[in-house]
């Protein structure tokens, strides 16, 4: 039982971390231009 409880709590903590990361990324405009980055990736910075 203790193992399950520990794992459940662990997944919830990790999951929440990922969730807040997602919320932050939407709010900070990471999804505004979803076409550009795939082209920009090919640019060699000079």
């Amino acid at each position, binding site marked *: *039982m203790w193992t*399950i409880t520990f794992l*459940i709590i662990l*997944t*919830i903590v990790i*999951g929440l971390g*990922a*969730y807040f990361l*997602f*919320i932050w990324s*939407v*709010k900070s405009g990471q*999804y*505004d*231009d*979803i*076409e*550009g980055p795939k*082209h*920009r990736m090919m*640019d060699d910075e*000079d």
Partner: protein
Amino acid sequence: MLRCKHCLLPVYEREAIYDDEGNVFCCEGCKGVYRLIKHEGLSRFYRDRKWDAQEGQRGRGLFNRVDAAHFEDLVRTDEKGLKLVDLFIENIRCAACVWLNEKVLHRTRGIISARVNYATHRAQIKWDPKELSLQDILDRIISIGYRPKPYSESEHLSQQRSEIKDLLIRFGTASFLSSQLMVYTIALYAGYFQGIEQDTKLVLELIALFLTAPVVFYSGMPFIRNTLAGLRHMHFTMDALITAGALSAFIFSIYQIFIGGKVYFDTASMIITLILLGRYIEATAKGRASETLQKLGELIPKEARRVVSGVEERVEMVPVSALKIGDLIRILPGERIPIDGRVIEGETETDESLISGESMPIFRGKGDLLIGGSINLNGSILIEATKTLKETMLSGIIDAVREAQMRTPKIQRIADKVVGFFVPLILLIALATVSVYLIKGYPLHESIMVGISVLVIACPCSLGLATPLAVLIATTMTTSRGLLIKGGDVIEKVKLIDRVIFDKTGTLTLGNPTVKEVVLLDRSITEEEALHLAASLEKHSEHSIAKAIVNASRTLSMYEATDIRIMPGRGIRGTVKGREIALGNSALMKDNKLLIGEQGLSAEVYEQRGNTVVYIGWEGAVRAFFVVADVLRQEVRAMVEMLNKLRREVYVLSGDNALTTSVIASQAGISHVIAEATPQLKQEIIRKFHSEGRSTLMVGDGINDAPALTEATVGAAMAKGTDIAMESADVVIVREDLLTIPFLIRISEKTYGIIKQNIFLSFLYNITAVPLAMAGMLHPIVAAAAMAASSLCVVSNSLRIRRT
């Protein structure tokens, strides 16, 4: 034939210009741009760009200056004293364009950052005002062949954008929680087969409850809200079905926890997650198209030259909105006419093609009325304003568009139609189940729960995907063919259309006059020589016929022309190669005592066929004439045939005169012709068709089409047309290929069929499970299986659209 290295236009070998490396160019301008780009070390642009050769830029806007004054309102200053501006960059077509703009701006001294959004073509530029001015930045962008415009977001667009963000967060939350939930649900499923300790089961169920609650009450809130709003009118939409399904699964599961039964939390959260996915797909597809179309009309100049004192003409620049009736305004050649007015002094020709659909320039002399927004071609004129800005013809058209936009009836989408019938039915079945159980003597709460279990299984999760997925695939296909579709419902609407109506100028035809024939009256000269002489003169004119002649003579080294005099409404005169040449209509020939001769009478025949004839003559005789007309796009005949095959009636609806219109229509093979239609009349004709029970697809390009485009069931605008036409249309034909119209009709017929199948499929699996629920034998695995099976079917069925 050779192609210009820079603009990809075809070049004749004898006219090609070469650089040191042997690259071919069509003109010095292209060579210059190429050198600039190469000098900056940006030649990658030529490797990466994806342009169709025929899409080349015809020098549009290449060397026109853009006035920084239009942008002043948009400039912001940050705390460090740096300036920021948002621009919309026109002519961006692929990733290479974005890259080039960013790099060129980055390398300009004083620019701190420049970022161009690939999807919206919006550039955000930050610069140091001490190093350079906004005008320098604009010039820089223009120098590489793009055109900056002020970027402003309409309220509608920013609202749409925040809706998409909200939807994304709701969907993200729902899918995150659903995936967590799945872990616990699988454990519960295993428990059904292998047995599970009561305590563990309870813990897992409680966790599932806590994970589902936010999905239903946060992510699903928009559905619940809409259902409550709809319930007041006894109006059952898709949202009502989703709410009923999700809420009943949720409540049923809580009840099951208490009696130690099986829970359906996964059903509740999956319904909402999948429907949100569908909504998100729909919203982004819609958003993408309208962002691309977010351009600003620059039709009316912002300022006008008002004449203050009449004696020794003094002018001041005033905003057009401040002009009053009776104000005198000076308009120079090449400028747009700022307001409707009457000519007081001077004469000129105006290009009204965008407003009236008239393809040729019109002569305007003293006392004639002018339309604001049209272009003053060749004379300096003084006009008296007869309207204020709000009452001009142009704003009248814009108002008509707005009004029509508000009135456009939304068609009832197929999914809603089915749901409107399905929800009451399923409620009835649930009620019947409850009453049967009650009659049989079961306790009330148990009977109600069986009834609710019917609702749980009846709600198809994949219903939310049925339409958006099919529409998404259809729109990706149309986009790759060069058609931008603004909303998902367009695909459903196109299918209904039985009349396709085309504007003439700029839609069926190329929109600019072309020299069709050169007829020589003097055998001692050649066609090329005649064109060469004419072009050398016409190079100095803004007139659209002049441009046709310049384009027809494919020479770049013109003769030098002196003593040039442009005579509005007649033509042009000047000295070329020591000859005093007159070029223009028959009146000009008569004035210069140039005899047309008997052979010249054939010109009348051309004129009767709707062409314009331009004579050239010197030393007492007319030497040749040019036949100029607006020509049909080459694919028009094929398109008309295809539309006829698809059993659509084809109409021409033009603002131009009856003669020209009927000539073009008969060339195109279209028998229904309506000519001399004002913008308002066009709109009324469409309305009349609708009242006869017809559905229409209107294709146009000018402002004069805008009201009709909005009024039509579906409006399609040519991308090279005016911004307002594109704004009022549902579909934009980006690649100027009219064959996409029959393609659009075919693909939407196919898509419509697929959507119907999808809806049927998504209901099928759930409905088969309803009897199980009625018997009180529903199992969570059955619900989950129905969900998975129907979603899979819907997805794979939608993919079939790609085989059109």
